[in-house]
């Protein structure tokens, strides 16, 4: 299958995502410039981490108007799998492809460390190969990862099982101490109603080989490869 990794000015994890998909998994992967208007025939799209357009104004606020985003929106509306990682998640929120918004971490500080994350839903294209409640050790690196949405929106997300990843302690229990940024309901990642668009703050693409301290992130990209193979055989 083929991945498209969108590159915005200020993206810094695009090469990591491209490497994880193209080299670790051995799939086809192409980086697509934000001014391009088509996704080069990709089967899955990754919006990578970084600081698109310098995070000026708000994280993702300028990037959502990049020309490529019209193609990403069309792709998502047709049911194509889209993964937003960190800044990519923030862009999906600003673009309205996922509900809610990000605000500054409650502790003010930029947090960069490995955290346990519990997989809450294994029926999205990016968690299909996960076991239920699997704990993944993934790196986070963000200053604005404090997920916020109005109480009724959060209730809706929970009711529709759209919370895909949650911060927990090592034993898999969510707690204030294990929440690195103050996100409501310890939310680390969500999906849209149709479940094909997934955003998360942790970086699975930076944890795909044991040499990087964790290979737990690999399953996220393997999931969409599996989904693609299953669809092809269906």
């Amino acid at each position, binding site marked *: 299958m083929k991945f498209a990794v969108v590159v915005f000015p200020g993206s810094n994890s695009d090469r990591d995502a491209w490497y994880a998909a193209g080299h670790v998994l051995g799939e086809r992967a192409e980086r697509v410039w934000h001014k391009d208007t088509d996704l080069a025939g990709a089967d899955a799209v990754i919006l990578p981490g970084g600081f698109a357009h310098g995070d000026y*104004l*708000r994280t993702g*606020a300028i990037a959502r*108007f990049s020309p490529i985003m019209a193609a990403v929106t069309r792709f998502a509306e047709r049911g194509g799998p889209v993964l937003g990682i960190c800044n990519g998640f923030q862009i999906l*929120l*600003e673009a309205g492809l996922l*509900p*809610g*918004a990000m*605000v*500054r*971490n*409650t*502790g*003010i500080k930029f947090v960069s460390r490995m955290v346990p994350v519990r997989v809450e839903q294994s029926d999205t294209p990016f968690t299909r190969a996960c076991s239920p409640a699997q704990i993944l050790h993934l790196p986070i690196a963000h200053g604005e990862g*404090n997920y*916020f*949405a*109005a109480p009724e929106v959060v209730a809706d997300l929970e009711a529709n099982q759209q919370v895909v990843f949650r911060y927990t302690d090592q034993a898999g229990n969510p707690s204030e101490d294990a929440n690195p940024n*103050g996100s409501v309901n310890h939310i680390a990642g969500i999906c849209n109603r149709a479940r094909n668009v997934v955003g998360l703050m942790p970086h699975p693409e930076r944890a795909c080989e044991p040499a990087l301290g964790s290979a737990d992130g690999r399953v996220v990209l393997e999931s969409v490869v599996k989904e693609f193979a299953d669809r092809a055989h269906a």
Partner: protein
Amino acid sequence: MKARVYVTLKPSVFDPQGSVVAHALTSLGYSDVKDVRQGKFFEVELEGGDAVNAKTRVTEMADKLLANPVIESYRVEILSS
């Protein structure tokens, strides 16, 4: 023509930066500080002199880009020059 846009976090959204600033002010001895909310301020210069039209345009800009309605509210002021 000039417009001013004030963007603030909605009251229901916790403002970590504001509370750090409030804390800093109380440690400077301003013990009467109860709370601080930090926001953004934009000055937009426009061509043309129609104030009504300017207000409509700048409100549209605030909706589209300057503020995120999920977490922020805004106020637009037109300055008569």
